[in-house]
């Protein structure tokens, strides 16, 4: 019997190595695997490359991971932004490397990794400062730049419902980066708000099939915090 569920966050995160590239899903705390991020802080891996939409906000989650000095490099689309206080401080003293990507290029580079595509061309960022040092090429009279696949060693994902095969359903805008990160990593670890019986999730609605999932831990985290 296939059963990807494990009993604890610690068990879910076991074995993540120093130097790993960790994809962390979520968008403004919706669909963000906060329990796994906290668990990663406990787990102790260092020298991480973290791929996340922001460089952390406030003092929790990715911000705390950075604050604890565990992130060698952050790959994100929003670095300096409202609330990125910890990143600012660590970055100012040269304590973290930064790779800024347009949000769609970040998503597509992970999609490429998931889809066996080592590189693709995109018009996004062509002719801008972000294209410096990147190959460019003209197709049909328009300039495009070459972007490479961005695979993860680990992905941290939050689902709304999951079954023991690791099939996942997301809630509302909680989908965001979760499916593409789940598919782009070697080891995909999921925290799920609810567990479902195998066969209970409609085959038409499964947004991440279990083939992309390795470990599953039930965390009834509840709704994302209320924004003011």
């Amino acid at each position, binding site marked *: 019997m296939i059963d990807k569920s494990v009993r604890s966050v610690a068990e879910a995160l076991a074995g993540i190595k120093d130097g790993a590239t960790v994809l962390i899903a979520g*968008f403004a705390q919706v669909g963000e695997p906060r329990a796994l991020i906290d668990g990663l802080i406990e787990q102790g891996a260092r020298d991480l490359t973290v791929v996340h939409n922001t460089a952390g906000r406030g003092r929790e989650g990715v911000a705390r991971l950075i604050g604890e000095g565990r992130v060698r490099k952050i790959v994100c689309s929003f*670095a*300096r932004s409202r609330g990125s206080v910890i990143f600012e401080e660590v970055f100012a003293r040269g304590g973290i490397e930064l790779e800024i990507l347009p949000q769609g290029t970040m998503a*597509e580079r992970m*999609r490429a990794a998931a889809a066996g595509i080592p590189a693709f061309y995109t018009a996004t960022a062509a002719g*801008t400062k972000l294209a410096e040092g990147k190959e460019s090429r003209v197709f049909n009279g328009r300039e495009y730049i070459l972007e490479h696949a961005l695979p993860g060693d680990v992905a941290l994902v939050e689902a709304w419902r999951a079954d023991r095969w690791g099939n996942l359903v997301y809630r509302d805008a909680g989908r*965001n980066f979760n499916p593409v990160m789940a598919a782009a990593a070697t080891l995909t670890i999921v925290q799920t708000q609810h567990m479902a019986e195998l066969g209970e999730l409609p085959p038409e609605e499964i947004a991440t099939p279990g083939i992309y999932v390795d470990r599953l831990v039930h965390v009834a985290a509840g709704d994302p915090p209320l924004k003011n």
Partner: protein
Amino acid sequence: MVETVTWQPLDRDALAARLARDIPEGWSVNLGIGIPTLVGNFVPPEREVIFHSENGILGMGPAPAPDKVNRWLINASSQYVTLRPGASYMSHSDSFALVRGGHLDLCVLGAFQVAENGDLANWARSDDDNAPAIGGAMDLAAGAKRIWVVMEHNTRSGDARLLRRCTYPLTAKGCVTRVYTELAVIDVTPAGFAVIDMVPGLTIEALQERTDAPLALP
């Protein structure tokens, strides 16, 4: 030169409303952070416009009543929104495939500067900004069928934002097709800026004075 002020600039809401007037039914539209987000308030619900948010929502409705908030339903500006009947969800990769593939009829963005060749600068005020917040702006600017910019006509210190060439780092080259300011609506044409509307009483000469690049009347 002494100018007789016989005109009023639009306030933020009036500016958003002015732009909203020009969005026809049936368009799919992404609204950037700031004044662009306000535009949604001025498209009447009976005019069916399909609002997209980069975080995977197609068919957003207006903000919910405070007691009806769904904490799982935010737009790309992290504001609570609602769904219209007909809405759907998608992943980030599918959402940006839609953006990059040219399927949005319109994206409305804020800007620091727009050049007469359509170049857009909206993410950094200096080449030295080494940790910027870009988000989806470059993808939207490169991908949407039309980019309309909504911004103040001048900086707080009175400098022009409608320029011959942008001096700030670019978001995308040649992407802007129209600019809405509190003073005027200006098309970006192969020949440069062409004024298609001004607030009542404003003269083209007065507008030109506040603008670096030459302005034509269409």
